[in-house]
Every structure is written in structure tokens, then in C-alpha cells.
């Protein structure tokens, strides 16, 4: 018996890789080493379950009856796992790098991570090796433990994990809950138990909150100054990689159950919705009617070592619905994020003291 508060979790900030011929290459099946694994807290209190699936012979005729007589091992179909946290420079850099796939690292203490959605048709750097063409995103290792040691209740490392989707939310409320990000993660089914990893002390994160936002403009409307200043209520942005099933001939086995051998992105979706107060002359509805497009920017700035900017390269308004938020007349706006032929879809820039994220 154990209390759920005893559950400790960690995951690698570096991506999984193997050394082949003296060079690092991306590796879905190679766990990261302990030195590249963070210990992090999680607002999601549900552990990451393993789910081996069995099948029976119920559908087969020739038994003389319709009932099952035998059970067979089938495959691992682990549920997704959510890492839900308050926004911090370290975690948001990790989420963007692992979910979007094309990251450039520059600077030195602090480090700047510039991330854009990877193009499957274009070569990029994966696992420290450049020139890789792939629909796969970087993989990480996830560790969860309860009383690790000789009589551990839970001690396992899931190998070949990837970020399926994320959700960023900003609210007009006080405290850390005003800026949150959650990442939904998928895994292949491969694991190691016991993990053989000693998790370090929990990483101290440099968190943002909605009060640290210094830039907030959507499609030409600035919500930090001018007529629309202080009209912003909330934002929900999300990304989904829509992974394709990763079972194929040779994808591998764990405990006699088939596992997935790849997690490839499908048709990805990028959604942005936000709510603003309505004032006389509010420009949003007019922009929608006029099919106006423009860049959109959200910037958190905690200090010179910790910041995050989401730059949507070309945004229009899909809908602008008149509504009521806590008694205030508002517009609920759904953005239409367009792929700009020059600058692409979206650029995430994070400055953080943490080195080696997704490297």
C-alpha cells in the first residue's frame, strides 16, 4: 500500500540516442542516462499505466460453441500520460522542443531554444545527428517510482516516449495557475523495471505567471497598450501531433506483447482560442469580416534568463462570438493559423538556464 504522494517522476531533458560508429544517432529503444533525467513534480496525480492487451479465440469456429477457450498475448497499448505543470522556462522549452521537432540551440547560460514544427520531408537534427529525414519526433525516457529499492512498489522507466500534444492556457487569475501548460505523452510499450535510475532532487523551475506577460498582440490588436489594453481575458492554445499507429512488422516485443516501433506525426493541428472584453470600437469583429491577417505574439518575461515567446506567423480570425464572461461582455475568438510562405506557421523562442534540452 502506498500513498499517491509517494510517487516520484522524472523524464529525460535530453533525447534518446545511441552511439553508432562513434556518432550519436536517434534511438527509440535506448533509454537516456540518469545524468540527463530531471525529477519533476506533476499536477496530474495519475501514474502512467502499462496496459498489455490479451485476446482470445472467441471468434474462431470449430470449437463446438461460441465461447472462448484460450487466451493469447497481443500488444501493449499504454494509455497516454499527462504532465501538467505551471509554466516555467525549463518545462516550456522541453515541451516545444519535443513536440514540434526542429530546434536550434544558441547562447550559453542562459540558453535560447528556437523551435518550429519539423517538416517530414526535410532533413533535421535528431539525436545529435544532422540530415535525418523522418516523421518521428525526438524520444525521451520517463521514470516513475514509489519507494525505489529492494522492495519498490513501483520502479520503471518507459522508453521511447514522445509528446503527442500540449495545451497552453493563460487566465486572468492570480498566482501560478494563471499560466499553465500540460503535455500529453505517448509511449511505445517498451520499459525497463527496475529502472536502475536514481532520480535527483526535484528540479527548481523558473515559473511564469500571467502577470509576467510583456507582449500580447493578436492580428494587429495590441492588448498591452492603446485602446485594447487590459481587455484580454484568457487564452487557450494547443498542438496535436495526431500520431499514427506504430505497429509494423519488426516493431518489437516486450514480455511477449507487440510494441510500437515508431511514433510518427500525422496531420498536425494548431489551435488558438482567446477571450477579450468588448469595448466601443473593438476591432476584432471588423478584422474577421475583412479577412485581416497578421502576426500574433505572446511573451512571458520573468527576467533576462527566463522568457518565452510564441510567435504565430500569420493569423486570421475564424470566428468571433459575442459572449458573457463572469458578467462582462466578451468576444470568444477562434484563430485561424495560416502557414506563411516565408516564416512558416509558428516560432517558439525560450530563454532558460537549462542546457541540453532535446539535445
Amino acid at each position, binding site marked *: 500500500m502506498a500513498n499517491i504522494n509517494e510517487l516520484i517522476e522524472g523524464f529525460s531533458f535530453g533525447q534518446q540516442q545511441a552511439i553508432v560508429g562513434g556518432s550519436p544517432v536517434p534511438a527509440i529503444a535506448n533509454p537516456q542516462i540518469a545524468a540527463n533525467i530531471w525529477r519533476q513534480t506533476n499536477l496530474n496525480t495519475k501514474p502512467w499505466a502499462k496496459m498489455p492487451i490479451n485476446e482470445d479465440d472467441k471468434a474462431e469456429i470449430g470449437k463446438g460453441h461460441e465461447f472462448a477457450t484460450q487466451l493469447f498475448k497481443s500488444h501493449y497499448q499504454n494509455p497516454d500520460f499527462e504532465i501538467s505543470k505551471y509554466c516555467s522556462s525549463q518545462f516550456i522549452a522541453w515541451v516545444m522542443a519535443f513536440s514540434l521537432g526542429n530546434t536550434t*540551440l544558441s*547562447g550559453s547560460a542562459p540558453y535560447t531554444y528556437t523551435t*518550429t514544427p519539423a517538416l517530414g520531408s526535410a532533413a533535421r537534427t535528431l539525436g545529435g545527428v*544532422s*540530415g535525418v529525414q523522418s516523421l518521428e519526433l525526438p524520444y525521451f525516457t520517463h521514470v516513475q517510482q514509489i519507494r525505489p529499492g529492494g522492495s519498490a512498489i513501483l520502479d520503471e522507466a518507459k522508453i521511447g516516449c514522445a509528446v503527442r500534444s500540449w495545451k497552453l492556457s493563460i487566465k486572468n487569475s492570480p498566482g501560478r495557475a494563471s499560466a499553465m501548460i500540460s503535455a500529453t505523452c505517448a509511449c511505445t510499450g517498451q520499459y525497463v523495471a527496475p529502472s536502475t535510475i536514481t532520480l535527483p532532487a526535484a528540479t527548481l523551475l523558473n515559473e511564469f505567471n500571467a502577470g509576467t506577460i510583456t507582449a500580447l498582440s493578436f492580428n494587429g490588436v495590441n492588448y498591452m497598450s492603446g485602446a485594447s489594453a487590459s481587455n484580454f481575458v484568457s487564452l487557450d492554445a494547443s498542438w496535436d501531433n495526431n500520431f499514427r499507429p506504430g505497429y509494423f512488422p519488426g516493431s518489437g516485443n516486450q514480455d511477449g506483447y507487440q510494441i510500437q516501433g515508431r511514433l510518427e506525426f500525422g496531420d498536425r493541428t494548431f489551435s488558438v482560442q482567446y477571450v477579450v472584453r468588448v469595448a466601443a470600437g473593438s476591432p476584432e469583429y471588423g478584422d474577421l469580416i475583412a479577412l485581416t491577417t497578421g502576426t500574433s505574439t505572446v511573451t512571458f518575461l520573468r527576467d533576462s534568463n527566463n522568457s518565452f515567446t510564441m510567435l504565430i506567423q500569420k493569423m486570421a480570425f475564424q470566428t468571433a462570438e459575442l459572449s458573457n464572461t463572469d458578467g462582462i461582455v466578451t468576444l470568444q475568438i477562434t484563430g485561424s493559423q495560416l502557414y*506563411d510562405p*516565408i516564416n512558416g*506557421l509558428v516560432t517558439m523562442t525560450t530563454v532558460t538556464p537549462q542546457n541540453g534540452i532535446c539535445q
Partner: protein
Amino acid sequence: MDHVFMESPQGDEIKEVEATAAALSPLMSQGWHQVPPPATGKTNISTEEAK
């Protein structure tokens, strides 16, 4: 200002560019990706200044 080396999606060109979103976005959206600094003596390296 920090600079980084970016390689074209075809792998036939390496370019040294400023590590800013404004400079990187057009390249990364076309499939350019970061590579380690190349060994000196390579001839296919261009810089923003040379453009």
C-alpha cells in the same frame, strides 16, 4: 549576438546566421536545421553578411 550554423534540407549548403527568431524562422520553416560548426576550410559556407 549569437550565431548558429544551419544546414539546408538538401544538405548542400551551410549558412551561419544570427540566432534570432527573425533570422531563423524563414530557414527552419523551409527545413533548414542546426548543425555543429563545420571544420575550417569548407567552401560551401555562407554568412548573412555575405548575402
